[in-house]
């Protein structure tokens, strides 16, 4: 089994959580209070992270499907596992479609959508073929690039003299709107999506670092989201920020430094490419690990090709237009998929697993043997 170092795991998680923002923004419908929503949902994200790590600690050393099997029985556990696999594949396809649409709109209007999506998926496939360890190293490297971009973006916007911090006032004026963007979307995306990492917790090389890695990355990602939201609102103003489909892109379009540096929106391709890649890859990785675990396969790479093709098909035939795509993503998916899968089922499984005696102190000692039994 592949082992992932703490730094790599953390950077994978941070990039994964920032990934959604980069395309569609985060809680931009809350206008100037988007940063407030980001902060609050970071809090709820920490609670969810606590739930997921608790769930993992019921039977440490196992992946998500293994934990489910041990907590609620083999049959139900496997069935739940398949549900999650399906969801991960679907979300992976969604992100791919999001990305493809964005590139198609801004950078390559004449290139067929499917070509763009196929290319990114090929990168994902090659990465996963190389293994989770390689992906996590990639994430660490990409994080340096990403961090550089965030700093550069902040500095360039400051230098362009377009920021107006009065846009942030009044704080918390539309409670209704804040609540609407918080429930269910703010609390499930991106922090609820972290459940995909439950498939990988057991791959963390130094298990003692688990809490630090998980909570640290959730907190850090939350703060970063808050800052990016502040930056977006102060650049665009609350109304425009709420109305634009791609807030980050629109924000970066405002950069103008003495007629020399302008129209940087294409550079966002790099930004978004990395983020979307990490997101798609993690979901695809989680899905293939889950499939391998349900069907007791030794290597997840066996199911990689069918799952990749499935993701591409889903992404292509998911919706007819951007509006339909966004509508489904904002109105249906959170209630139908995310609330049950990210909150309800994990809580139930945790309660049942707790009642059935998981998470006892001796469970950790027998970790190695249980892993072997699970594999056998």
């Amino acid at each position, binding site marked *: 089994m592949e082992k992932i170092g703490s*730094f790599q795991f953390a950077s994978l998680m941070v990039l994964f959580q920032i990934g959604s923002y980069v395309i569609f923004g985060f809680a931009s419908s809350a206008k100037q209070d988007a940063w407030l929503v980001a902060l609050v949902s970071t809090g709820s994200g920490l609670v969810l992270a606590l739930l997921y790590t608790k769930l993992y600690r019921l039977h440490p050393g196992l992946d998500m499907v293994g934990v489910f099997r041990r907590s609620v029985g083999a049959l139900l556990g496997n069935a739940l596992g398949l549900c999650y696999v399906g969801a991960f594949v679907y979300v992976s396809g969604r992100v791919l479609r999001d990305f493809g649409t964005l590139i198609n709109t801004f950078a390559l209007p004449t290139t067929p959508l499917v070509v763009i999506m196929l290319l990114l998926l090929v990168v994902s496939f*090659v990465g996963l073929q190389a293994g989770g360890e390689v992906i996590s190293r990639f994430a660490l*490297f990409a994080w340096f690039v990403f961090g550089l971009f965030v700093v550069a973006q902040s500095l360039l916007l400051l230098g362009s003299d377009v920021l107006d911090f009065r846009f942030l006032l009044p704080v918390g004026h539309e409670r209704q709107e804040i609540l609407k963007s918080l429930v269910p979307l703010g609390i499930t995306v991106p922090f609820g999506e972290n459940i995909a990492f439950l498939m990988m917790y057991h791959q963390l090389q130094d298990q003692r670092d688990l809490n630090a890695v998980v909570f640290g990355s959730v907190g850090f990602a939350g703060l970063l989201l808050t800052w990016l939201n502040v930056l977006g609102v102060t650049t665009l103003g609350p109304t425009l920020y709420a109305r634009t489909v791609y807030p980050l892109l629109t924000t970066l379009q405002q950069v103008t430094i003495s007629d020399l540096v302008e129209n940087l929106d294409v550079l966002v391709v790099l930004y978004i490419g*990395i983020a979307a890649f990490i997101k798609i890859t993690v979901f695809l990785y989680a899905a293939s690990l889950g499939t391998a675990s349900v069907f007791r396969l030794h290597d997840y790479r066996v199911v990689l090709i069918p799952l990749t093709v499935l993701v591409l098909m889903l992404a292509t035939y998911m919706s007819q237009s951007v509006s339909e795509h966004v509508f489904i993503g904002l109105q249906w998916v959170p209630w139908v998929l995310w609330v049950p899968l990210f909150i309800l089922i994990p809580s139930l499984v945790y309660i049942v697993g707790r009642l059935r005696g998981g998470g006892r102190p001796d469970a950790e000692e027998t970790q190695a043997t249980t892993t072997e039994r699970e594999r056998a």
Partner: protein
Amino acid sequence: MPRKHRRRQLNENALNSQSLDELKQIFGESTDLLIRPFPGGHVVYLRTQIDQVRLEETVLERIRHGFQLDRISSAYVLPVHTFAQATQEVLDGSALLVVDGQQEAYAVRINLTEHRAIEEPSTESVIRGPRSGFTEELDLNLYLVRKRMRTPSLRVEEQIIGEITRTRVALLYEEGIVEPNLLREVRSRLQTIKIDGVLESNYIEELIQDSPFSMFPTIQNTERPDVVAGALLEGRVALLVDGTPFALVMPLTFWGALQASEDYYSHYTIATAIRWIRFTFLFISLLFPSIYVAITTFHQEMLPTNLLLSVAAAREGSPFPALVEALLMEVTFEALREAGVRLPKPVGQAVSIVGALVIGQAAVEAGIISAPMVIVVAITGIASFTIPRYNFGYAMRLLRFPIIILAGSLGLFGIVVGLMLLLIHLCGLRSFGIPYLAPLAPLSLSGLKDVLVRVPHWMMRSRPRQVGKRNLQRMPAGQRPAPPTPHAEGGGEAE
């Protein structure tokens, strides 16, 4: 060489005239094999391999009146029992003394020691630093390394690789620093080599490297003995191959490929700054033409208006799309570069004139190629020379082309896809078990002191963790120079 002779004893039943015949047969009556009688026996040697003067002085002169072992004045006298040993000794430049009536023969090593002078290596020249480079002679190269590391713990393990060339290959390591796993791995990989001949160290390199299909070198080659010594001090392992001045050093990481020996011989601030220039120009050499193609083809709005106007005006006359233009020019540049290496020296100047005038000026004036493209190609060419390891530069030169094609068909998105694939490849590479991008990914904070910067020597207190973790300490703490201030010194004198 007929194999049946190999194991047979020499002088079986003391029938020496017969064994001389057999020796002659083994060499197939080669014209440079001479068998010369002396009182009480025969001396067998290859005329081309030995020093005739020394043969006369140290051997023939001494045994003029009959063979006596203790009269031979040579440091290397070896009793020989089998045909295999005997032939090898003769090939290595020994005179073989076959004495009548004795069970064993004696090999006296009086080989020719012709070699070129120790010169400054042309591939890794420095402004400050030692000027000596390896030569083609293994023993001389070993001398150059040993001279720099005068310790008995420098170990040399020699073996012979190549069925026909029987090339000597020496494995060098510093006992007490080197990681035993690494050493075992190198040894076992060397042992699996079965090849007819080794003419250059690249034969060995390609047979023992980790990812045979990767363009990136995972083994470093160097002409400099000081680089080898530095690597041994870090706990790495070196291979010297007879017949080539290029030694192999392993393992090699991505960052190691971007370090030059002069980084350690010049002031650390300069060395750090130059390292960053190298990082920057590494990207330029890989990406500059592709970015130019992507921007002029897909994302013209990224250029400031004035620049866009001048680029557009310059490109107006050119009949080709930017992609074709870039590929044409890059290929031409690579061809010029290759021609510059291959051409006989006196013609070299002609090539540079043709290159500069025809490709540079005339092509632009004739309206075939746009002027910005020439600038782009020129900068890219210069950038690729900043990479200190030549074979690492190859990878960048070659990868430029697929990325140009991606950029020409998909714009910046294509470049991003290409870069991500490249990065995934690099993340997955290993060199003798060490991740290629270490210590950056996976991250090891202490390793960064010799990657992103070059810290002063008094701060470089530990060896790189990946190769030197067995004996991490390089020097004790508190080595930072702190000369007494003039004031304190004055006070001391007054007392």
